[in-house]
């Protein structure tokens, strides 16, 4: 049994429900109506395109195309993480890319414990699972890189203190990285521990709607949550180390040019 199809007309009428929050915004004179309309329009157009090219990729079902697609997703995720962390793309892109590649590749290899190779590399598995993992590692990596670079600017004296007591750059960075990692991992722990109580995740809901039994959906959900947690932790750790290799000059001074000119005073 598959998911029951929704007609385009019904979907159109459902979209009209957006008028309700818009009316609330108008009533409270909050100038967000334009932003809401643009966001909804973008969502519809973006998802429309996704449907079109995923239909094609699923039809082709070529492993190299699937991997190429995953590579593009990793590159886009890397770019989004750097932008949201206020860091320059040109400085970091090539140094953080291997961190995400390594973390995702490791996570894919772990799937072979539970799925056979042929099933996993098929477009219907690898692309949604890859997308779900990448979508979920964004938040943690943004928090960690933002926290780390921000702390190094705000608490420059502490960093200098470690160096001036004989710490190498690596040793001096360790307390800052531990703090950033802790802050970045905390939301994942909360999500994992409240899973099923506070939220029924999208993948599980989708599988149940698609006709899978709740028991099977839960098995997949446990697998994906472990994959997200492992990939997030690994990517956060690696991206912090890899990014720090290019963030300093030869004298262990944080280079001011690593930050985007965002007016935050950093």
């Amino acid at each position, binding site marked *: 049994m598959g998911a029951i199809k929704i007609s385009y007309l019904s979907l159109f009428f459902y979209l009209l429900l957006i008028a309700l929050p818009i009316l609330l915004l108008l009533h409270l004179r909050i100038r967000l109506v334009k932003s809401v309309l643009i966001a909804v329009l973008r969502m519809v157009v973006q998802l429309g395109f996704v449907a079109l090219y995923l239909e094609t990729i699923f039809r082709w079902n070529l492993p190299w195309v699937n991997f190429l697609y995953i590579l593009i997703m990793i590159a886009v995720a890397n770019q989004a993480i750097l932008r949201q962390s206020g860091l320059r793309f040109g400085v970091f892109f090539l140094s953080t890319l291997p961190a995400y590649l390594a973390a995702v590749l490791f996570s894919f290899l772990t799937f072979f414990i539970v799925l056979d190779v042929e099933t996993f590399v098929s477009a219907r598995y690898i692309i949604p699972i890859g997308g779900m993992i990448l979508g979920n590692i964004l938040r943690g990596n943004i928090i960690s890189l933002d926290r780390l670079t921000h702390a190094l600017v705000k*608490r420059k*004296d*502490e960093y*200098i*203190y470690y*160096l*001036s*007591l*004989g*710490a*190498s750059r690596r*040793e001096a960075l360790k307390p800052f990285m531990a703090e950033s990692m802790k802050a970045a991992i905390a939301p994942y722990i909360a999500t994992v521990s409240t899973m099923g109580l506070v939220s029924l995740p999208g993948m599980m809901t989708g599988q149940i709607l698609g006709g899978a039994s709740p028991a099977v959906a839960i098995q997949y959900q446990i697998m994906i949550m472990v994959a997200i947690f492992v990939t997030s932790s690994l990517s956060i750790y690696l991206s912090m180390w890899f990014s720090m290799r290019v963030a300093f*000059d*030869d*004298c*262990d*001074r944080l280079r001011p040019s690593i930050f985007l000119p965002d007016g935050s005073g950093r």
Partner: protein
Amino acid sequence: MIDVGHLSVTKGGKTIVSDVSLSVREGEKLLLRGPSGCGKSTLLRALLFFEPFRGSIRFRNETVDRTNLAAFRSRISFLGQTLPQFQVSADELLQMPFRYRANRDHRPDEAEKQRLLEALNFNGGILETSFADLSGGERQRLLILQVLLLNKPVAVFDEITSALDRKNIAGAVREITADPRRTVIAVSHQAEWEAAADRVIEMEEGRVLEGTG
């Protein structure tokens, strides 16, 4: 021992330290003085390459650059005027630098630690107290103790006794300057430092005043 040649620091188009040249002898106790904002702290940070600068620094007749910077820094302890915040106990903080690779050959001397605790006027329970719970003066004295335990050939201090009372300033300055082999470069306006210094250098608007360098 340390020769600074034509050192200048510019930040955001503004010259903070301008063409400073000075030499510090082995074992010398050198005091830097000058009005607030005249570039003393920036000069000290530049000395350890924590600030980008133009000019040169020589250590024991060898020019310091990125190839030997780590070795140079490993012979110097530096305490800036802004003290970091830590959530660890005073004793854990004292042990921390001895875990760094560069200091692995040093072991904190327990007898010396006890002697310094007494000399710096600490009471018995201080080591178990969290650094965050110490007063400003206690924090300064604890970090001085840490530097003295590390016992590097050069110690650089920036207003490190500013939160101490007269008695504790005298005790701290006495301990810092007691070893004739230790080279000390300090920024302070306190009379105790002046009395203990072999030489006083005056700075104004980023420059060393004539006749004091």
